[in-house]
């Protein structure tokens, strides 16, 4: 059975088209033999399709006046780094595109974990798993809750675990030296 994930990835990169007319037949069928943990295309294939779509989309972009992410907010986050003095006008524009791709890549990897556990809702622990499995996401280890082994989906305990995280930075295993890390983000969990 070949579920059409490619159309999903290709269309997902299209700015300004939130509606999806395709993939209506895509259903999570627990009866399928789990030869591959993600029952659809493999994660590798999904990502290859995703990046091919991103390359094509970048070529076709002609409207730089509307962005999927607000430039003013991106600029504020950039300026939280005290070492940053000046940025050119193009810098937040490049970041908007990079952040969009980052969110999509992270979500694709997390959803693969959702499917592996036969879930329907992408949750925080799917993100934690995806981040732990991806080398380029190592820089996120410090801000992730340390409950990857949590057996039950418990929002309350997840929140408690997050809020009770120790604030000190775990420098062991970090592949980079980041003296300009702006905020630990550990004690500023967004209110529900």
């Amino acid at each position, binding site marked *: 059975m070949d579920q059409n994930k490619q159309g999903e990835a290709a269309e997902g990169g299209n700015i300004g088209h939130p509606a*999806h007319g395709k993939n209506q037949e895509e259903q999570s069928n627990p009866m399928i033999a789990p030869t591959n943990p993600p029952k659809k295309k493999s994660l590798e294939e999904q990502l290859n399709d995703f990046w091919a779509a991103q390359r094509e989309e970048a070529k076709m972009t002609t409207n730089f006046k509307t962005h999927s992410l607000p430039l003013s907010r991106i600029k504020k986050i950039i300026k939280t780094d005290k070492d940053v003095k000046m940025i*050119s006008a193009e810098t937040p524009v490049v970041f908007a595109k990079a952040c969009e791709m980052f969110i999509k890549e992270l979500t694709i990897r997390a959803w693969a974990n959702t499917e592996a556990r036969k879930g329907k809702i992408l949750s925080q622990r799917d993100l934690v798993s995806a981040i732990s499995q991806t080398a380029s996401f190592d820089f996120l280890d410090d801000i992730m809750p340390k409950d990857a082994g949590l057996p039950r989906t418990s929002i309350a305990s997840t929140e408690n675990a997050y809020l009770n995280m120790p604030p000190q930075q775990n420098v062991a295993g970090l592949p980079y030296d980041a003296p300009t890390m702006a905020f630990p*983000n550990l004690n500023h969990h967004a209110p529900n």
Partner: protein
Amino acid sequence: MEDESHNNTLPNGFNTGSPESPFLKTSTTTTQHNKEQDRFLPIANVGRIMKKVIPPNGKISKDAKETVQECVSEFISFVTGEASDKCQREKRKTINGDDVIWAITTLGFEDYVEPLKTYLQKYKEIEGEKLSIPKQMRSEQRLQQHHNNYHDQNNQPFNGAYASSNLISQPPYVPTDQKFSLTFSPNSIQSQLRQQDQIDSVGHWYE
């Protein structure tokens, strides 16, 4: 770093740089303890992007969206730090798009590089066209600052005023032979006619 920002300019606006610097020099940090909301991208935008890459019947929990909000801010700070370090090593003050792409390459996000280079190139082409055609742009909410920046660069009036040329007027010719006039004339009309005859026929003073 515990030091507080001293560049408190307009709360929501931006402060243009010195005339020597054509790039934006902005500092929107008002206090050390910014509103928590300002340190994350809006959760609605994040959720919308996430939904584009999952099946239509899939759902995303709120805690997942909030986690991605934090991850994106961390991603921005991570890349910014690397780009800023590079600029300092090269004694440059302004982080530009190429610095961001370089940092992303260095930090292991190779797949991002080709789309970003293409994207930045097209952006420069389009913005370059805007630069060469000065016009009053309608208000663009998100790119207003960029437009102001480019508009300032194009706000130089044309000083080449065309000098007015004066007509070279020649002095009128005054005939000198009109000095001689008849003192005795029985009729004024005849006198005028004779004067004309004298003018027309050169060499015949008396008939």
